[in-house]
């Protein structure tokens, strides 16, 4: 579809010039959450599995990154790999158990695992407990790219985001992605055609965890700390909100949702805890009035405009 290509081209140009108009650290944070939301949406939007514990991958990867880079004195690329690998392993273990159930049971199992991980992080010595893991140095990436410079780091983060986004895109439009959609539409039918649905779901779960880990590790690289907030249930809830606000089942939706939520948190920070109330209100309005999310509604409007007869 050419209009889609044009859309992507405009977005990429916008992303490239964005640091001229907005604070790079804010943009990087938004990109990290955008990737996190895309990873989450891979599971909810395309497999129909609602995880309530995705923060465990996001937050743990931040700790892995911090520990590897700070305590083991490794370069950032190793830290990122450690974050992704750690999240993938965590995803494999929790996913293998969680995918045996669906709907609310799946959500509760993932929530339970996330709570376990949260309390592990409160207690474990290497996470710094309540203080978090602070002062992670920004070392040059691959030994040459000076990540101390926010502007340079912005383009690194943008590249990481685009890589993750492309991976998800590739995945969804592959034959594998079609089987996932078939499983979401009618699992029993997919089974009786010869697809071992559980294996497909587990692989999607692990991939989603790994990409959430990439987002979390990147965030730790940007902010130079890993905190309990990122493994907390509230973060798991936020990513649900981002995906819903942007639009489930559209690949770009969660990106838009993440930018809306992160921007809102940023500009409404002056209201303190009141932000949560505003977020809650927005959530209710979106779910009641725009069930398809911002992107879903815009796409519908666009389709209607182009073919007014139907």
């Amino acid at each position, binding site marked *: 579809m050419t209009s889609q290509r044009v859309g992507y081209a405009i977005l990429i140009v916008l992303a490239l010039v964005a640091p001229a108009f907005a604070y790079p650290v804010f943009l990087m944070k938004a990109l990290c959450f955008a990737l996190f939301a895309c990873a989450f949406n891979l599971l909810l939007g395309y497999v129909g599995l609602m995880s309530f514990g995705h923060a465990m991958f996001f937050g743990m990867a931040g700790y892995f990154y911090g520990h590897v880079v700070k305590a083991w004195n490794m370069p950032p690329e190793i830290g990122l790999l450690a974050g992704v690998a750690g999240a993938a392993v965590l995803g494999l273990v929790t996913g293998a158990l969680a995918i045996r159930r669906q709907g609310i049971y799946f959500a509760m199992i993932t929530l339970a695992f996330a709570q376990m991980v949260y309390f592990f992080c409160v207690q474990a010595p290497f996470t710094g407990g309540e203080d978090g893991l602070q002062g992670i140095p920004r070392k040059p990436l691959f030994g040459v790219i000076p990540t101390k410079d926010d502007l340079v780091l912005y383009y690194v983060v943008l590249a990481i985001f685009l890589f993750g986004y492309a991976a998800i895109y590739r995945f969804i439009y592959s*034959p594998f992605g*079609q*089987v996932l*959609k*078939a499983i*979401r*539409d*009618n699992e*029993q*039918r*997919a*089974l*009786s*055609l*010869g*697809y*071992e*649905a559980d294996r497909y779901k587990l692989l999607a779960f692990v991939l989603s965890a790994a990409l959430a880990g990439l987002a979390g590790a990147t965030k730790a690289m940007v902010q130079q700390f890993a905190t309990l907030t990122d493994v907390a249930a509230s973060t798991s809830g936020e990513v649900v909100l981002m995906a819903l606000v942007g639009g489930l089942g559209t690949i770009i939706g969660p990106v838009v949702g993440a930018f809306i939520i992160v921007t809102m948190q940023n500009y409404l920070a002056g209201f303190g805890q009141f932000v949560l109330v505003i977020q809650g209100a927005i959530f209710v309005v979106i779910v009641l009035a725009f069930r398809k999310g911002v992107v879903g509604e815009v796409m519908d409007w666009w389709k209607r405009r182009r073919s007014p007869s139907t």
Partner: protein
Amino acid sequence: MADTLLKVTGLQAWYGESHILHGVDFEIGRGELVTLLGRNGAGKTTTLKSIMGIVGKRTGSITFEGEETVGQPSDKIARRGIAYCPEERGIFSSLNVDENLGLPPIVKPGGLSVEEIYKLFPNLLERRRSQGTKLSGGEQQMLAIGRILRTGADLLLLDEPTEGLAPVIVQRIGEIIRQLKARGFTILLVEQNFHFAATIADRHYVMEDGRVVDAIAAADVQQSIGKLQTYLGV
């Protein structure tokens, strides 16, 4: 019967607490077209689902090409060469016609190519880019049948393929089923519509209360018509 493809012995099946099949016995030879007849609730669909491994619990024996399949998961059974076309059709709503056709994995050589399937169902070719759920009932049924022809499965389980369709489409589906038999597919057909079944099948099994109670060869249908009417309540 020359070569038995599927043999069902003492098959019992349950949905949760309800005991649906109470010992079903029958067999199908390679290349045959056999129907399961019976009233609503006799256990015809459950028999198909049991063969496919998608009921809650089943006991007894189902051998396919001499190998036991009771106890195996549905996806393994499908990979052995059994394909199931359910009554509700089960078209994947987010995939288009092409994608629905291309989705099932090839389990054996000898299946139809996508081109051959479109030749069999020209209506589908015209609608190949349409979402599965935007098709008419007849088109969905054709897609549901077409979809399982690509995999190379030897045994097709068709559950009421004519239900709720216009007479001309029923006729068309009858022709297609005959063509499939001519190509060597073995077909187990569940039908309410006896008049339709009688025109195409080699043999009929009659089910009542979760058991096979009678077997009637196509040649004997005329003389058994009174008996059949009692069985089916028509």
